[in-house]
C-alpha cells in the first residue's frame, strides 16, 4: 500500500530538514524512513504468524512423521526452542541478510525455494498486467471520451461484471473453451522462455488473460477517471482551439497527461497482482509462489509460508516506493506538499 506523503512519519521532517535542502531529497528520505518502519512492522507480523499457531507448530507440521528424533532435529534447525525475544531478533537479523530458515518438509533453504519460484510468478503478474493495460487503456479512454453516452454505460457495466467475477472461475471457463473444446492452448503447466519461447507463450496466454481480465476491469475505471481529469482541464480546450487535429490532441496532449496517473495505477496493480495470482496459479498448475504457498499451507510448512508472505510484502512495498518516487519526480505538487 502506498501512502500519501502526509502520512510519512513527521519525526523525519524536522530531523531531515536541517540536513537536506532539496525537496526531492527530503521527500526521498521521508519516504525511505516510512518504508523502513512499515517493513519492520511487516516482519513483526510475519514472525508472529508461527507464534500464533495454536499448539506446537513443529508437532503439527510433522503430523504422522513425528518421532522424538525428527522433532528434535526440526526444533534445532528452526530455533523454535529458544526464548521468544531471542527468536525474534534472530529472525529479523537473518531475514535482513536473506536467510529465511529451512523448509520443515525437506530442509531446503526457504530463500532458495522462493527464488526458484519467483520468475514464474513475476512472468504471470507481468503478463496479466500487459493484458490488463491492453483492455483498460482503450476501454477507459473510450468511456471517458463518450462520457455519459451508451459506450460509457457499456464499459461501466462490463467493468462492474469484470470486478465481480472470481478469477479462478474465469480461468476454468477459459480452459473449458480454449483447451477442452477448441484444443488451441494447453490447460496447465509452464515452460521456461529460454527452453521454448513458443511453448512459453502458449502456456502463459490463458493464465495471463485470466489475471488480466479481472485486473483490467478495475484499471478501466481508473483510466476513465484519469482521462476525464485531463479532458476537463484546460489543456484539451486550448489545443483544440489552436486548431490542432483531433488525433494530435488525443495522442499528444491527453495521452501524455493521463499517462502519469495510469502508470501509478499500473504499478500498484502489479503489486496487487503478485499476491492475487495464488488461486490462478493453482488452477493452471503454474509453478509460482502462489502454488508453492498453497502446497506449504497443505503440509503446514510454516517457514515457507512465512517466507512467501514476507517476500511478496517486500516486493509490494518496493513497487509502491518506486511508484511514489516516480510520481514525485513527474509531479512536483506531490513532493512539495
Amino acid at each position, binding site marked *: *500500500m502506498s501512502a500519501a506523503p502526509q502520512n510519512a512519519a513527521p519525526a523525519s521532517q524536522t530531523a531531515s530538514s536541517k540536513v537536506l535542502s532539496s525537496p526531492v531529497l527530503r521527500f526521498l528520505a521521508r519516504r525511505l524512513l516510512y518504508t523502513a518502519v512499515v517493513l519492520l*512492522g511487516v516482519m513483526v507480523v510475519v514472525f508472529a504468524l508461527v507464534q500464533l499457531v495454536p499448539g506446537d507448530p513443529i508437532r503439527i507440521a510433522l503430523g504422522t512423521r513425528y518421532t522424538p528424533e525428527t522433532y528434535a532435529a526440526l526444533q534445532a534447525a528452526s530455533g523454535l526452542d529458544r526464548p521468544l525475544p531471542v527468536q525474534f531478533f534472530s529472525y529479523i537479523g537473518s531475514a535482513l541478510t536473506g536467510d529465511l530458515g529451512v523448509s520443515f518438509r525437506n530442509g531446503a533453504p526457504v530463500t532458495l525455494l522462493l527464488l526458484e519460484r519467483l520468475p514464474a510468478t513475476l512472468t504471470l503478474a507481468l503478463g496479466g498486467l500487459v493484458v490488463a493495460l491492453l483492455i483498460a487503456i482503450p476501454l477507459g479512454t473510450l468511456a471517458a471520451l463518450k462520457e455519459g453516452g451508451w459506450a460509457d454505460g457499456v464499459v461501466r457495466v462490463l467493468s462492474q461484471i469484470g470486478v465481480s467475477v*472470481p478469477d479462478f*472461475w474465469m480461468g476454468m471457463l477459459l480452459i473449458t473453451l480454449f483447451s477442452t473444446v477448441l484444443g488451441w492452448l494447453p490447460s496447465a503447466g509452464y515452460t521456461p522462455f529460454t527452453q521454448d519461447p513458443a511453448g512459453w507463450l502458449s502456456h502463459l496466454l490463458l493464465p495471463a488473460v485470466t489475471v488480466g481480465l479481472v485486473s483490467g476491469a478495475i484499471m478501466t475505471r481508473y483510466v476513465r477517471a484519469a482521462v476525464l481529469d485531463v479532458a476537463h482541464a484546460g489543456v484539451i480546450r486550448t489545443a483544440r482551439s489552436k486548431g490542432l487535429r483531433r488525433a494530435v490532441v488525443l495522442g499528444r496532449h491527453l495521452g501524455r497527461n493521463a499517462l502519469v496517473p495510469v502508470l*501509478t495505477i499500473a504499478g500498484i496493480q502489479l503489486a496487487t497482482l503478485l*499476491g492475487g495470482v495464488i488461486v490462478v496459479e493453482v488452477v493452471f498448475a503454474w509453478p509460482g509462489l502462489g502454488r508453492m504457498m498453497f502446497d506449504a499451507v497443505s503440509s503446514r510448512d510454516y517457514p515457507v509460508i512465512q517466507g512467501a*508472505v514476507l517476500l511478496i510484502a517486500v516486493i509490494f*512495498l518496493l513497487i509502491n516506493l518506486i511508484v511514489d518516487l516516480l510520481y514525485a519526480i513527474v509531479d512536483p505538487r506531490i513532493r512539495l506538499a
Partner: protein
Amino acid sequence: MSQLAPGAGAASGPAPETGTPGSRRASAWRLLLSSPTGAAGLVVLAVLILAAVTARWLAPYGPNDIDVPNALAPPSGRNWLGTDELGRDVFSRVLLAAEVSLQVALVSVAIALVVGVTFGVIAGYAGGWLDLVVMRSADVLFAFPILLLALAIVAIQGPAISSVMIAIGVVYTPIFARVARASTLSLRQEPYVQAARTMGVPTWQILLRHILPGISGPVTVQTSISLAFAILSEAALSFLGLGVQPPNPSWGRMLFDAQGFLASAWWMAVFPGLAILVTVLAFNLVGDAVRDVLDPRQRSMIESRRKR
C-alpha cells in the same frame, strides 16, 4: 490517487469526507432506488437473502443426497441444474451454499467494521501518537495483498469457517479504519463538534452522537463494497480447501471439484460460478449506487440529469 486499497478496486480515490445529514436520508433512499443499477442490485440482494434464509426448505434435495446411478446428469426437470459426480443435486447445493457464503461475508465484514471503525474514529479524534500508531499498523496490514494475508491466517488457524471469518475480518479492518479516520478528521473541525467540546460534553457522547452518525455515509459505502469482496475471498479460500469443509456445500469448493469434469459436466462449473458472480455483482452495484447518493458532487449530477 496514491491511496489505492489492494483488491478494493471499486474504492477509487479517498472516501467522501462528508457524511449525510439526517434530513437528507429519506431523499437518499429515493435517489438510491431511482438508479436503475442500484435498484436492480437491491432487488437481487433481497431475493438472494430470502433464498439463502429459506434454502433448507426450498432445496428439492438434501445437499449430500448421493445418487450414484444419476451422477453427472445434465440439467433436467428432475435436477434443474444437473447433478455432480456423486449424483448430488447441483441446484440444492448452490442454494444451500448461499447461506454459508452470506453468513461468512456478514460476520467477517461486521468484525472489520466494528474493529476498524473503532480504531479509526479513536485515531482520528484523538490524533497525536495514538493516531500515528494506529495508522502505521494499518499501513503494515495494507502491505500484504488481501488474499495472501487471509491465506496465511487460515493456514495458522487451521481450515474452518471460523478461521475464514477471522481472516477476512482482519484483512478488511484497515480499510474501515482509514475510511473512519478520514471522515472523523474532517468532522472534528465542524463547528457543532467544537461547540459540544467547549460545552464539556463527554468525549464518548460526542463520538456516539456526532461522529458516528457523521461518518455513516462513507462507512456504508465501504461496507457494501467489502461484502462483495468478502464473498469473493471466501469463495477463493473455499476453492483452496481452506474454508467451508466438505461435505458441506460451498460455491468455491464446488468449483474446485468441477475442475475434473470440465469436458463432461459443464453445469458443475457454470452454476456455482454464476452464483458467486451474481451475488458479488449485486453488492457492487448497490455499493456504487450508495456512493453516488452519498457523494454530494455525484449526487447533484444525478439530480441534474433527472431534471433534463
